[in-house]
């Protein structure tokens, strides 16, 4: 018997359907992975099952939990199943943890055993949370640690149905395996698991069933092995193919183009804390240089230092200049946040005329938008009303119109789902090739770096002292990112 069945679920806001007529089911001892574009409504489906749909959003359909059939709009009915039948691992762990309670206490209060505190510590340790982090409060934990505390809470739940919303985001490869292990154990103990994720590798490793959500509905679902191996719909095919690990690696070439940015014996840091020292490197026009490195090592800081947003602690930087402004530009991680949220994006573009040489830039825009495949109707919308892919392309177009010499892209695709990521990355490659723009691409994704970067630089920690930069373009073994 199916543990959880979702029948004809429709979720709509005033005048707009977000999810249309979705039907899903999970049996006990089974993991169903839902994949889909960001903003396609995956989290809302989970909320609907939990009876957490916010006010102002209407929901219809039926939800069958362990044989009990409930109206999807019956919030109270669904809520009465909390913790006994239904359990949620939310997308943002920091919002779900009690802010002033220590990690072990939060796990311990879930445990009905004789020695909850000790069991809680064991559960945390199993998640590779080191003992000295056990007594920390949520705000003292990094995003990855908080994610693992949530996994520890999930690992001791008694509920039969677990909804997990992106449980591995922000984790590096090793930790991802640990969390995957938790779900594996839960599955073995007979839980039914609904797994929402963008991570194709995780889906490959874990999922029994897969469902693709596109354009408001489920476009394809079926056993994971079959669907991932030979997707039958266009969208699923694109999705699977957009995994950077499937892309061909970019061959090495010598560089003959001019240098754009040169750094010599650069020392970077925040305030007086030195993060990295003795950084000597340069970027060539038309090249994409990938900057790799462990989380928190100082990649973003290096980017900001090059842009002049953070004061260097030593050494020299030579930057290109153009029309009184820096010819260095930045592509942000979250594209929907780079436009003023108070006005339509079209307005933000028009405001370029206040810039030196802005009129000329403005005249370039239509052509650029056409080149990036952007329709004019996005211009009338506010930033939060456009998709991440559109926003990132729009941001690229705006930057290109000002004719920079170099672009620093700080994890420009980590908030995007794989198909959109691929689209943006291909545009980035094209810009480098056609417009002779130098790109410094900051990323965690080694596959991605191999696929599109001409050079790869690794920022790595020394045993003592600040981090150093190493060129790993031709080093055979993959550095851990």
């Amino acid at each position, binding site marked *: 018997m199916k543990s959880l069945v979702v029948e004809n679920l429709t979720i709509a806001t005033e005048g707009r359907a977000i999810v249309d007529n979705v039907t899903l089911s999970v049996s006990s001892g089974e993991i169903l992975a839902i994949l889909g574009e960001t903003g396609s409504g995956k989290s809302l489906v989970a*909320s609907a099952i939990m009876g957490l749909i916010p006010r102002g959003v209407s929901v219809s359909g039926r939800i069958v939990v362990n044989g009990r059939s409930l109206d999807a709009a019956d919030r109270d009915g669904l809520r009465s199943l909390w913790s006994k039948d239904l359990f949620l691992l939310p997308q943002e762990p920091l919002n779900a943890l009690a802010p002033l309670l220590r990690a072990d206490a939060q796990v311990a209060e879930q445990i009905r055993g004789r020695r909850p505190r000790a069991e809680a510590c064991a559960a945390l340790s199993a998640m590779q949370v080191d003992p000295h982090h056990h007594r920390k409060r949520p705000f003292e934990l990094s995003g990855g640690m908080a994610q693992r505390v949530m996994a520890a809470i999930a690992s001791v739940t008694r509920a039969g149905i677990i909804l997990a919303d992106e449980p591995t985001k922000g984790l590096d490869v090793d930790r991802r395996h640990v969390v995957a292990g938790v779900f594996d154990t839960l599955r073995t103990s007979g839980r039914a698991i609904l797994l929402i994720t963008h991570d194709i590798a995780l889906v490959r490793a874990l999922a029994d069933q897969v469902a693709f959500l596109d354009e408001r509905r489920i476009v394809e679902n079926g056993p994971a092995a079959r669907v991932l191996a030979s997707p039958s719909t266009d969208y699923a095919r694109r999705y699977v193919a957009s995994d950077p690990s499937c892309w061909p690696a970019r061959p090495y070439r010598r560089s003959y183009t001019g240098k754009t940015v040169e750094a010599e014996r650069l020392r970077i840091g925040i305030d007086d804390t030195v993060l990295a020292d003795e950084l000597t490197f340069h970027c060539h026009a038309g090249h994409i240089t990938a900057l790799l490195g462990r989380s928190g090592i100082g990649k973003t800081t290096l980017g900001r230092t090059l842009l002049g*947003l953070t004061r260097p602690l030593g050494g020299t930087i030579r930057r290109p200049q153009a029309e009184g402004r820096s010819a260095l530009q930045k592509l942000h991680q979250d594209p929907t946040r780079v*436009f*003023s949220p108070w*006005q339509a994006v079209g307005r933000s573009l028009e405001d370029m005329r*206040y810039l030196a040489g802005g009129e000329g830039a403005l005249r370039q825009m239509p052509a650029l938008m056409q080149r990036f495949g952007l329709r004019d109707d996005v211009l009338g919308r506010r930033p939060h009303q456009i998709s991440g892919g559109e926003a990132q392309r729009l941001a690229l177009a705006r930057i290109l119109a000002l004719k920079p010499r170099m672009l620093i892209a700080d994890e420009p695709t980590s908030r995007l789902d794989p198909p959109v990521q691929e689209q943006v990355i291909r545009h980035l490659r094209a810009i480098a090739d056609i417009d002779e723009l130098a790109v410094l691409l900051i990323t965690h994704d080694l596959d991605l770096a191999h696929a599109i970067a001409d050079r790869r630089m690794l920022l790595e920690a020394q045993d003592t002292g600040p981090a150093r930069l190493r060129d790993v373009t031709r080093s055979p073994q993959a550095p851990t990112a």
Partner: protein
Amino acid sequence: MTQPMRASSPGRVRRWPPGFVSVFGFLPLAITLLVALFGPWLLTTNPNRQDLAAAYAPPSAAYVLGADDLGRSIAARLVAGARISLGIAVVGVLASLATGLLLGFISAFHGGWVRQVVMRLSDVILACPSLLFVILVSGLLGGGIGAILFGLWMSQWPGFARLTAAVASKELAADHVEASRLLGFRPGYIFRAHVMPAIMPYLTSLGALTVGANVLTISSVGFLGLGLRPPDAEWGSMIAGTMTYFRTSPHMVLAPAGAILICTLSATVIGEYYSARHQGIEEIA
């Protein structure tokens, strides 16, 4: 206990129904503002005209709201007082708002010692209760509109400056500002296009609440006998002047007290309405 479980997404809190806000917020304030602006042309009676024989007269056809201890028409004085009480309150807020906006933005934008200076200065001023401030200033400068305005301005710009600095520095750290800076936009543009819209709702709310508070402050100063120069009809001093007769001729106190209440209430309702629409104002302010 009921379980308030509507919380998965904050959304917008509808604390006051809009119709309610119109009736208790905008409508009375609009009427008072109109009266303040055009009152002098509507008046048929000079608010300072005395008729000692009619002193303490209760409401009647000749004196709609009665007459005060010098036989002046309370209705006429209320109308004249609207201009003074509300005028000072509003002008005081506008002046502090402008100053606070400017200093707050500059200190957020510039950071460093400028911010330190502005913030420490406002700390010191905020530690001094604003009523005390206005009382002292108007006491020392011998009353008058200018003194009260100066006192209100002096004691209130720091609040606006801190609010602006708090919102602005949050906003200035945002990606969209960073992007604009990199693209080469000037501070003026960033202020206008990125920071102002973010601050505006907070300022509207704080401004409206402060107008209400000012009406109260002015009336308290008037009550203490340190307000404006007589015979200017200001609501607080109208109460102060007639308090003595509260139990024998209550109309003399109730009319200005009612005006103060309505005016403050509407400003409060408006301010609360805006702050409810933008949660978290308490944390920032």
